[in-house]
């Protein structure tokens, strides 16, 4: 490897091999999700497993494809915790009401 190529390798984070392996992991997780749907488990269990897998996939895409893993911590802190906090606040406000509505339905 020449000096220029070495310098480029240091500047450009990640390698083709890494990105392909991340893609393989994402496709495997997608297959697992589809298998869960085929097996048709109880709703709450399905939801927990599917959301768990989605969050892991999000982590992979954010970290490797969107390069957040190779950026400064400051950028990660600006983007991720704020978003998670906003989503949790919206969920905390609205979800309990949906269960109340469900139980209020006329039978």
């Amino acid at each position: 490897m020449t000096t220029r190529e070495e310098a480029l390798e240091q500047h450009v984070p990640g390698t083709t091999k890494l990105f392909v392996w991340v893609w393989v992991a994402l496709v495997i997780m997608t297959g697992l999700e589809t298998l869960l749907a085929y097996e048709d488990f109880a709703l709450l269990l399905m939801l927990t497993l599917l959301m768990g897998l989605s969050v892991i996939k999000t982590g992979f895409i954010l970290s490797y494809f969107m390069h957040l893993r190779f950026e400064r911590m400051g950028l990660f802190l600006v983007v991720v915790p704020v978003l998670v906090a906003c989503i949790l606040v919206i969920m905390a406000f609205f979800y309990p009401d949906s269960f109340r509505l469900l139980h209020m339905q006329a039978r």
Partner: protein
Amino acid sequence: MNHTQAETIAEVSWAGGRSPLAVDKKKLGMWLFLLSDSLTFSTLLICYSYLRIASPNWPRPFEFYPAIVKATLMTIILLTSSLTMVLGVHQAHKGNRGSAVKYILLTMLGGILFDIIHISEWVNLIVHEHVTPFSNPWGSPLLGGSFFGFTGLHMLHVTIGVFYLGAIAWGFGKQKFSAVDVEVSGLYWHFVDLVWMFIFPLIYLINVAPR
């Protein structure tokens, strides 16, 4: 701290030209836009989840074959387009313009394939299953509105992304745009893929027709 040191620190902070997050301004701008768009999609998802939980007659209309198989294929196509996009960004940063443009064109192809399959699914639902945004033959009328609204907004993002990438591929090939511009477009494309990672389980997989 004496007055001179405080003045110096103030001058350095406010003199401009500093990049506290060590990112290009276009990249930061795109990240901030994606933050706001994430909140849009999150709110829609939460709204849809609210409706689904609160409706006892929410239908589960998606047969494993062909609906779920098609949706899985769409997911894999989008993931593959994300891979080609990140490889394109990688090549752009290495200065390989030809390779970068080829990968961007492959990414666009993935987006177009995704749109074609999705539109075929819409046509099947509207024409053969008689689902509209206001009614369906199975249960809660909110199913159609939420499904078409959500997937329609996502499809619009994919379509805009295809045009955006086309402009970037053209401009980067003509040396009008830099590798940072390619990376910024890549961020948008990966975001579109990321949103689908939540639409796929919540709209399709949770609503698989019982066997």
